């Protein structure tokens, strides 16, 4: 028990946090823009963005591998210009986690934005604020509950991703082996005990993190 390697746990947390932050930065503006248009094109685009949920993670991972791999245009460019590789690195794990988790955030945020009372937006406009400033001062805080739910879902999904991460990042011990991969490995190696312990660690940590996220969400919307 003493010699349980906690690296996968920390890597998983790091990857999930980074992916979630990226998902927030990319996904929320995207959800906002999608919400601005009520048209069919936006709805179609929305459906496309939901696709990563529908594809089996491993398959998604395979396509990511092809798309971002060292033979791909993107991969070669990064490798030649910045001597950077995405695949088989924590960066790859992060990107995989980002792709599988961002749809949850986008969808939640879009529906939260759509629920905002339009008269408040009107009031903000009349008070002379720019759309950007209204986004930060009205849209974000008022949609906060839904966004927070989306963030929680995205974070959980990023933390739990196995198939896509494994494919894109490989499972290099002490480098790209995340907790889900470690659990899977233990299970497949027939090491039930280790698997159980790892699952226990994973679930305890997750519950704590999710609980904190939950309380934070409450905090932010408490006084209303």
């Amino acid at each position, binding site marked *: 028990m003493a010699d349980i390697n906690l690296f996968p746990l920390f890597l998983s947390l790091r990857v999930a946090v980074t992916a979630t932050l990226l998902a927030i930065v990319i996904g929320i503006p995207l959800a906002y823009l999608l919400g601005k248009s009520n048209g069919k094109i936006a709805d179609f685009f929305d459906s496309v963005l939901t696709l990563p949920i529908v594809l089996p993670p491993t398959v998604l991972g*395979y396509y990511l*591998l092809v798309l971002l791999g060292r*033979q791909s245009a993107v991969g070669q460019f990064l490798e030649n210009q910045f001597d950077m590789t995405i695949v*088989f690195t924590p960066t790859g794990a992060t990107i995989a986690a980002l792709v599988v988790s961002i749809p949850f955030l986008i969808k939640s945020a879009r529906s939260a934005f759509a629920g905002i009372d339009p008269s408040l937006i009107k009031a903000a406009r009349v008070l002379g604020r720019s759309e950007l400033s209204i986004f930060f001062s009205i849209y974000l805080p008022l949609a906060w509950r839904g966004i927070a739910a989306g963030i929680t879902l995205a974070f959980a999904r990023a933390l739990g991703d196995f198939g896509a991460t*494994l494919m894109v990042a*490989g499972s290099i011990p002490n480098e790209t082996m995340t907790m889900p991969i470690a659990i899977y490995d233990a299970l*497949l190696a*027939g090491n039930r005990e280790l698997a159980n312990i790892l699952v226990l660690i994973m679930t305890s940590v997750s519950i704590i993190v999710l609980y904190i996220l939950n309380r934070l969400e409450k905090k932010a919307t408490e006084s209303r």
Partner: protein
Amino acid sequence: QVEQEPQKELLVAAASDLTLAFTEVGALFEEETGVPITFSFGSTGQLADQIENGAPFDVFAAANIDFIDRLKEAELLFPDTQTTYAFGRIGVATLPNSTTSVETLDDLLNPEIKKIAIANPDHAPYGLAAKEALETAGIWDQVEEKLVYGRNISDTLSYIETGNAEAGIIALSLYQEGEVDFELIDADLHEPLEQSIAVINRTNEEELARMFIEFITGPIGKPIMESYGFIVPEETE
């Protein structure tokens, strides 16, 4: 409508390295017996777990004899049906027309080769064999840095095919000409990859299941298996 007897069917759980070979053998078996045969391919460990929890398979073809032993202990198999039907072989695969050709394991040390894919030695038998071979060749410590682990042998192949790993060690059975260049590794460099098969004792089709095991190692099965790179042992009995 008249036929009361339930439709006969054989359900075979097989390790994923058998995908190509068994699909072909299975078709011939169907032809011969007129009984439809269905394969469920997957990781050996996963299939073993499923069988332990009541999966309705008739036959289990593992890539790793350890799992057959495990099920035997759990008294889920007919012990007498346990047969080693093949020995797996591994080799080094590289992308065709790549600048760095790999002929021996030592070539893996070439700095041009940045990534080497093998299956996860913790649970994939082919990964374990690859690890043993690298150790025996005395280069494990040097190449460990470059290794990436696939979940199974087929993920490993994907890494090579997509050009993300310059080289990798895969099963001979997955090697398809043209897709990758392949150099067989000396079988002495690793423990034999003993692939075992057995009938699960819950089966309703014991007869048929036994027939299938014989069929694989028999005159029709054997050449096909061999054509997919398995070493089929001589009948010992």
